[in-house]
């Protein structure tokens, strides 16, 4: 196995969301593709600026919701029409209108659980350790500061050049992130 780069990336700190979005755009346009941005609240359009446009959450929720609904309906049909048929008020064993409510609830249940778990899984959470936390200033990423990082795995990454480039973005500070 190749030795891990001791530097995880170079990180710049900004004061405003506007500065972060502008810097992210410039960095992406300058040819850096493996970058990420951190903010204390969701910023509309920021993910697009760093080249992230599609996420898999809706598909996960759709599939799980359909599975939930189908399994809900099949469960009721199998229980009440096949395995243990009971005559209730002379209704047919397979009386689909009375199965709708639980089918609906199961769709919501599966879809809802998959929305949370799918989001966490795709985001790679829970993740107890991450190199960005090595930067002491990063504690402010959950308060009022905005960060941009260029990963050392990026093709265009160069310890000196990238640092120079990031200095030119007019950040509050630039720091190396040890991995």
């Amino acid at each position, binding site marked *: 196995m190749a030795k891990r780069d001791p530097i995880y990336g170079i990180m710049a700190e900004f004061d405003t*969301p*506007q500065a972060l*979005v502008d810097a992210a755009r410039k960095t992406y346009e300058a040819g850096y593709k493996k970058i*990420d941005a*951190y*903010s*204390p*609240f*969701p*910023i*509309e*359009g*920021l*993910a697009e600026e*760093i080249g*992230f446009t599609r*996420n898999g*959450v*809706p598909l996960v*929720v759709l599939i799980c*919701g359909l599975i939930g609904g189908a399994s809900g309906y099949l*469960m009721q049909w199998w*229980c*009440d029409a096949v395995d*243990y048929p009971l005559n*209730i008020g002379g*209704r047919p064993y397979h*009386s689909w209108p*009375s*199965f709708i*409510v*639980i089918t*609906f*609830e*199961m769709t*919501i*249940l599966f*879809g*809802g*659980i998959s*929305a*949370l778990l*799918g*989001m*966490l899984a*795709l*985001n790679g*959470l*829970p*993740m*107890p*350790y*991450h190199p960005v*936390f090595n930067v002491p200033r*990063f504690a*402010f*990423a*959950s*308060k*009022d500061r905005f960060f941009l990082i260029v990963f050392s795995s990026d093709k265009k990454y160069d310890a000196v050049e990238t640092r120079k480039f990031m200095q030119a973005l007019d950040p509050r500070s630039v720091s190396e992130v040890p991995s």
Partner: protein
Amino acid sequence: MNDQYNSTELQRAPVIEPGHTFASVTDKISAIVLTRPATNGWFVGFGIAFMATMMLLYAIGYLFLKGIGIWGVTIPIGWGFAIVNFVWWIGIGHAGTLISAILLLLRQSWRNSINRFAEAMTLFAVACAGLFPLLHVGRPWLAYWLFPYPNTMRVWPQFRSPLMWDVFAVSTYATISALFWFMGLIPDFATLRDRSDKNWIRMIYGTLAMGWRGSARHWHRYETAYLLLAGLATPLVLSVHTVVSFDFAIGIVPGWHTTIFPPYFVAGAIYSGFAMVLMLAIPIRKIYGLEDFITTRHLQNSAKVMLATGLIVAYGYGVEAFMGWYSGDTYDAFTIWNRLHGPYAPFYYALLACNIFIPQVLWIRKLRTSPVALFIISFVILTGMWLERFIIVVVSLHRDFLNSSWGQYYPTRWDYMTFFGTIGMFLAAMFLFCRILPMISIFEIRTLLPQAEVKE
């Protein structure tokens, strides 16, 4: 056009008082959890609520020992307080989901400062609600029979029954509410993790935050998932009280067997829920100095929602009375007559006063913006909505088709202890919540600040 828009904007109270920064909202809300010492007032309040919770446990313990014979339920009134309280509590929970999910989809940004504790209110209210049917089944230790699981008796639940639908609706509702609440808390857990100076506190919040670091990719998926969850919770919350109303409407008891029940139950649920939101928000914003975030605008908007849903409820009462006459059905007509002149008539008049007449004062702007007046009106509405469920359950059951089976309902001290005990449990949970979790969503408040705007 633009000027007109601006001038009405100016007349309205702001969603968040001007002058705040990202740092100041973060510090102000997280300080309540991290640095503010617990005051004597908190201990007294929590102590009382905790003792009421103990009373609840005592009442439940005795119930386990003796059976539900200690309650006032008997034939013909087999449902009694247990179902009245169940419907009342679950209705209260609905406002939380309405605020967090439906108002999110409608892009009502004022929701951001009240959604967190409204969702907490939902969770605790659903927990209280869930207790009642569980105890009311008579042998609570066998309540798991309600769920379809492979068993040696080789039987399955009867899925054509609205009571089974209710099991699925309420348990799904409880699960989704908890998920929604937890998901909203993740970024705020990260904030608390980074703000706290004690190691063990950082460990706890850090574990809950699961390594959240606010990456743009993460936020992108997070927002999608949050919106989808809101989209799923919206039909869910409407379905839950609809299914609860099916428990009644599918039955043939006069006063229950009607199609107006689902919409009228949902409106009533939101009505009582907003009343509870106000009863919690008004003291909380005062005690914790959160008037900057929970402004007059929030109180006023909640009052307007109550006014609107209250009118829908009034329409429901009107339709019930009209159908009693128009259907030409002797029993339906008698149900209405019995409400107005029967042994429980004073309750019905009190219900009309609490739910229809008194809340009309909310048309007056001065009262809509007065916290004290709103607090009192909310209490009146909550009482009225409890009476409504009492009328629906008890008054309909005590006079059914056969004169020989008529009866009267006498709740026992155990009924009252259980009911007030759940109020204690609810308040004790709210007291704890205020101390250990940020009661206003910090990251959503940040997005409301003018500094958060980004131009393309």
